[in-house]
């Protein structure tokens, strides 16, 4: 097959993946409304105002087989919380998750075709970078399910991915081109790939932090109109999962920064020069370093640190799109 054919098939695959993701999003949204219905009927049947999340906490405490909280701080929730829906995920959720897997397979096919067409790794211009980045976001989302059931984030993740992919396909598309001499390095494979890995973890972490903030408000008596939150884990559990996910992202991001510095030393003659992209990578690193410190600071754990995680992810998205497109700098590889 010629380059052009392969590239054309890749485009078809991207649009197919987007369609499947949209369907998955719809199914995840239906799942959320189903959760709302479950939560409301549970609320109605339990006359007492004790909500489901109280039941959740109680059951999770009980499950810890006689463990008691340390006086200084609540015991870390060691086992997955017994969410009311765990074990009997709604049909919508199962459908949605299956669609995500299908969409991801198509998405990966699109990536591979693009890579074959170009004869190199498919992350050398902005369109390809978004394509790879979103595939990794979904990959991280799927990977995390092996450890923890966070399928309730499905609507959030599929929405972000569809929006980014749509934006990239419509606005950033460039035909397959040769590799700019500055990009001809093994570091392209490592540095950019690890950066997108970090982005994937930050995306899931950001979603968990948003859920945590909402859950905190609900636990304090607000957000009665969002009943599906009652079926989510308690805010403290969400916070702990978010933290685990974000520190993995942070480790990747630290590596990205260093690999980038080594590469910059090879290509531009200095390992750090405050180029706009470098500045934003630094800002993101410092923000998440702040997040990790905030979680260890009395008075900052909880909602405040969650805000930092969300700001950090917003900065990642800003770096991903606005800085790439509108800021002048050496990382001018959008191909646009």
């Amino acid at each position, binding site marked *: 097959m010629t380059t052009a054919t392969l590239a054309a098939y890749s485009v078809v695959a991207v649009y197919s993946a987007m369609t499947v993701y949209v369907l998955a999003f719809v199914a995840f949204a239906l799942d959320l409304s189903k959760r709302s219905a479950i939560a409301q009927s549970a609320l109605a049947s339990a006359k007492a105002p004790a909500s489901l999340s109280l039941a959740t906490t109680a059951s999770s405490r009980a499950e810890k087989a006689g463990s008691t909280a340390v*006086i200084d701080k609540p015991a*870390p929730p060691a086992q997955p919380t017994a969410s009311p829906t765990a074990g009997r995920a709604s049909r919508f959720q199962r459908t949605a998750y299956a669609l995500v897997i299908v969409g991801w397979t198509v998405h990966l096919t699109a990536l591979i075709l693009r890579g074959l067409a170009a004869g190199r790794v498919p992350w050398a211009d902005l369109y390809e970078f978004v394509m790879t980045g979103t595939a990794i976001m979904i990959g991280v989302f799927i990977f995390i399910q092996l450890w923890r059931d966070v399928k309730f984030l499905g609507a959030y993740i599929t929405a972000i991915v569809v929006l980014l992919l749509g934006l990239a396909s419509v606005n950033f598309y460039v035909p397959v081109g040769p590799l700019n001499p500055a990009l001809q390095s093994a570091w392209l494979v490592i540095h950019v790939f690890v950066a997108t890995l970090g982005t994937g973890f930050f995306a899931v972490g950001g979603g968990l932090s948003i859920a945590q903030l909402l859950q905190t408000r609900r636990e304090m008596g607000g957000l009665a109109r969002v009943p599906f939150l009652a079926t989510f884990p308690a805010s403290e559990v969400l916070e702990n999962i978010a933290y685990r996910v974000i520190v993995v992202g*942070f480790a990747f991001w630290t590596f990205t920064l260093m690999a980038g510095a080594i590469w910059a030393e090879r290509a531009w*003659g*200095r*390992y750090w020069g*405050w180029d706009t992209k470098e500045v934003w990578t630094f800002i993101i690193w410092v923000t998440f370093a*702040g997040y990790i410190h905030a979680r*260890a600071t*009395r008075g900052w754990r909880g909602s405040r640190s969650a805000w930092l995680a969300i700001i950090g992810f917003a900065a990642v998205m800003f770096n991903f799109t606005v800085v790439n497109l509108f800021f002048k700098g050496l990382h001018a590889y959008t191909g646009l």
Partner: protein
Amino acid sequence: MASRPRSSATPRDDGTSAAADPLRPSDHIDGTPDDAGAGVTQPRLKLVGYLRFFWRQLTSMRTALILLLLLALGAVPGSLVPQRSSDPNGVVAYQANNPDTFKILDSLGLFSAFTSPWFSAIYLLLFISLVGCIIPRLKHHLDALRAQPPKTPARLERLVGFTSVTTTTDAATAVAEARSLLRRQGYRVASYDGSVSAERGYLRETGNLIFHIALVGMLLTVGVFGSYGYTGQRILVQGEAFTNVISDYDSFEPGRFSTESSLQPFQLRLDSFQPTYQFQNGGWAPEDFAAHLSTRVPGGSWTEQTLKVNSPVEIGGTQVYLLGNGFAPVVTVKDPNGTVVYAGPVAFLSQDGNLTSSGVIKVPDGLAKQVAFQGFFCPTPVTTPTGCVSISPYLSKDAKALPVLQLSVFTGDLGLDKGVAVNAYALNEDKLTKIAGFRTDVPGLDLHVGDSAELPNGLGSIEFTGIDRFVSVDIHHDPTPAYALLFAMLILGGLLLSLFVPRRRVWIKAIPGRGKQPTRIEYAGLARGEDPTLARAVAELAQRHQQHLDGVRDSPPGEPPVGRT
């Protein structure tokens, strides 16, 4: 291993106090809150009291956090306006376009944001805070590394993963088994009366300290050691040799501590330059740039080397990088008698991807007046009313569109006589008169290779004799990269240890039953820092320990271990 008792008696040091180890600032989530702060116990602060108060504030978690956030925020403006360090031309353009806002922003130091006093203040405070935090922690950790795990708490029920089982094995055997089991699992073990106290994951705090110390090391490397380096740029035309002395650079930026003697003696010569382009998507895209250089150190002979964008040439501890490239038309200027007054290649800087290039030729001496030529060179030209535009980066071989050099001619004062440095690639037209070219009565010069033309007013003639290539190189001497890399690896390694090694204490206690009653064994753990898998680890430990005990008193079919309470 030293069995010295724990000397630093922290409050509530029964092994369950979270503040005991690792040491943390008082507002750390694991720290001991000190509500009785200096302000309460000392109503009237003396100087020392104030100093201590400020020091405590500076080294607190909250201050470090605020400073971190300020650092992130403070870096934002530096990405919004061009920086002198990374984009000097952008700064000049900004000044030309917005002279008023430029003055305000410049007074705030925004054009060199990352060396500005306010940005420096943030990171210096942050690092002072960091040093103030890690020194006591380092001391504490070194003590902890030599100390025994603390005494088993009297009551384990309150702790994480508390499990209690009964067994027919006697207490002494159970404790001995527990000890060897924990040892095998990498715990540091201490036996107390009828119990085992164990701790593992010291690497977590070690990693954390390495991470933070390496950050300080990185700052010192870049900030202090980096000042011994220098950087300079030079345009090198084919055949031309460069000697590494300051006067041979086109531009040179010394580091704060670098001197003339920091320049390693060597020579560079550009032998040839080979670019490769690919035609794709309606345009030419660069595929590969290869500059073939010869280098020589004193006493040595010329060695051939290839310089590419991603592979610098190293010579005498100094790196040479390929920055740009272009065409250098070779011209000869003669006076009316035919005496050569100027001859050689002149680098024309490329303006676009197809190497439409612009340049200036200055002839200060030898003609009746000072003369300058300004114009364009196009390797594959298309002619437009304002000059040529190139449509390919390759030199055209098509007889209908041969490479062309289009020049306007100026006479007057070139400004070269005052000894002031003047940009060789630009023309200050203030004291010059245009005598040929666009918007004058005389048409400009349109030269192909081999052409020559008479200059207006009988000044002389110019001949376009050939086309050379040039490259622009960046020459760096930076003593820091090896150290920066070392610290970077320490930062990354320390970070991974501090984030992913769990630090925990576990206890196994055997309480002998009275008379014929079975022995009761208790298990519990305590997290030191984030440790989400602690409860599971204690449960697994309990299970494994019981399996071992079952193995020990295998032979009699006595009663199986009684269920959990």
